[in-house]
């Protein structure tokens, strides 16, 4: 069917594709280029994607800022612990959602859907009060527990899809041999679920790493700031003179997410999310 497309049609399509790529890719390139520019060049209106003279001092300046290093450490800690707890808690629940029928499954599905559309702003106010009464406000552990709860709808939904794809016959065979539910979970389901668990874990890591709003509300002490909050405070306080280190910090904050998205790219474009919207 494509043989009938005139040559200029194909040409136009490449032009359109190039326009999309420039639109989608330019901001990251600009940030990258800004992170290597001198302050003088950063404050000029010259449109140079390639810096006139390469200046690596922005990165050293960004890394010398103690709060940025602390924030990076906080972010790594929060994202890793969130990832581990979320996966540990989600796996059994996802298994239950996929295998057990009835009211539990219905309730779980409804909750997963509701949590996707519910405005966080309404939950954040009482959440703040709940954490305060548990003495967990303004702590990284409190933030981690909140992240675990807020990513679970997505991880549960993802994981139960992976569990549902495992044929129940395998479990039945193990059960014939007298294995209990938890032995089955460990010896039959877990190995088959490994790729799904890895993908889920990576998603959890990225969402905790990127998260802004909850951290903004729940953390008050600057030494507890995660990277997004630290970057944003950088922006508010010092304005244009610090654009270079800010760009460098922003690039450093983006790299982990970019790498993980690169790894998960096949899964993303392979329609992992497609099941959600097939009407």
């Amino acid at each position, binding site marked *: 069917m494509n043989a009938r497309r005139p040559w200029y049609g194909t040409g136009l399509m490449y032009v359109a594709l190039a326009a999309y790529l420039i639109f989608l890719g330019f*901001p990251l390139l600009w940030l990258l280029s800004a992170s290597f520019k001198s302050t003088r060049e950063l404050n000029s209106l010259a449109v140079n994607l390639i810096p006139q003279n390469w200046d690596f001092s922005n990165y050293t300046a960004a890394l010398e800022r103690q709060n940025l290093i602390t924030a990076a450490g906080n972010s790594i800690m929060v994202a890793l612990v969130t990832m581990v707890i979320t996966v540990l808690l989600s796996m059994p629940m996802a298994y239950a959602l996929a295998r057990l029928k009835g009211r539990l499954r219905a309730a779980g599905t409804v909750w997963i859907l509701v949590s996707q559309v519910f405005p966080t702003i309404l939950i954040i106010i*009482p959440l703040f009060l709940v954490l305060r009464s548990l003495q967990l406000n303004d702590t990284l552990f409190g933030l981690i527990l909140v992240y675990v709860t807020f990513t679970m709808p997505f991880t549960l939904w993802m994981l139960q899809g992976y569990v549902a794809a495992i044929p129940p016959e395998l479990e039945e065979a193990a059960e014939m041999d007298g294995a209990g539910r938890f032995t089955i979970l460990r010896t039959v389901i877990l190995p088959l679920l490994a790729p799904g668990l890895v993908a889920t874990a990576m998603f959890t890591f990225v969402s905790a790493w990127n998260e802004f709003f909850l951290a*903004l509300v729940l953390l008050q002490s600057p030494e507890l700031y995660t990277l997004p909050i630290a970057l944003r405070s950088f922006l508010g306080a010092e304005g244009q003179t610090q654009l270079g280190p800010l760009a460098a910090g922003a690039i450093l904050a983006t790299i982990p997410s970019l790498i993980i998205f690169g790894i998960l790219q096949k899964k993303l474009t392979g329609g992992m999310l497609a099941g959600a919207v097939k009407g």
Partner: protein
Amino acid sequence: MSVETVPTRATQPRPPRKRRSGARQIGARTRAQRREAIALVVPALLPILVFSIIPLVSGVALGFTDATLRRNAEISFNGLDNYAELAGDHRFWGSFGIGIVWAGSVALLTLVSAMGLALLLNSNLRFKTLTRVLALIPWAMPPVVIAIVWRMIYNPNSGPLNGILGWLGLPGVNWLGDFSTALPAVIVVGVWAGIPQTTVLLLAGMQSISAEQHEAAAVDGAGAVRRFWHVTLPALRPVIIAVTALDFIWQFNSFGLIYVLTEGGPGGRTMIPPLFTYLEAFRNREIGYASAMGNVLVIAILLILSLYLINQFRQNKAVRA
């Protein structure tokens, strides 16, 4: 013997160690199963209960009180007082209107741009794998970083946008600071950030359309445009509606991007409802009133959702008929 009570495991014989007499065995088995199910579910349910369901319920309840963030303050229910006050609060309704414009524009423009990109990626152009990877970039960037980059791009004194305008001999624009350009400027950022996800979803939908349908239409002499209108678009309809509804709701609830870009300014021109509510709760410390705003937002979202569900329901009926 216990087929009715435990349908999920009806076919499996029990391990011998649990063999007991009939009635007791059923009871023990159901109980054992229930215990298993509870053990599987409780660890996840506990945080959900404490950090999601309890806050949700108390958030709704707080909207009917005069609570403030001050410690040891007495909280009392004040019925519908908050809503009476809210009804006359022009700033809130102004913000509500901005929220609708923001979410609606971002959802529609994202749909149109993502549709174009998905069509290109679904055709037999070269460099497809590369473009698919590159097109995901905005999705991978943390919202704060997105906002920081676009602040640099929109910067009136050093941004490339004004640089190009200057190069063309045109006067610069204070994109995020000017009353007339601030909202369109943040909408562009919203669209930019939303394209990858919507593209992926549309692309998945397109790939589930069978090639035969296209070929049949092509044999009948339909050109690319007509094939798009008469084959692709109808087949994608459920995906399009679902994606746009979700996009609208997500954008209506979104916070970080605009907070870092403009903080609601200039003069409240980009003050979307979550931001307005946030400031009311954590700057003015009026959490009762802010929760009432949250409740109004929930009702608005429920209305949109019900429109979507009714549409979906009608469609299902039409398919079955």
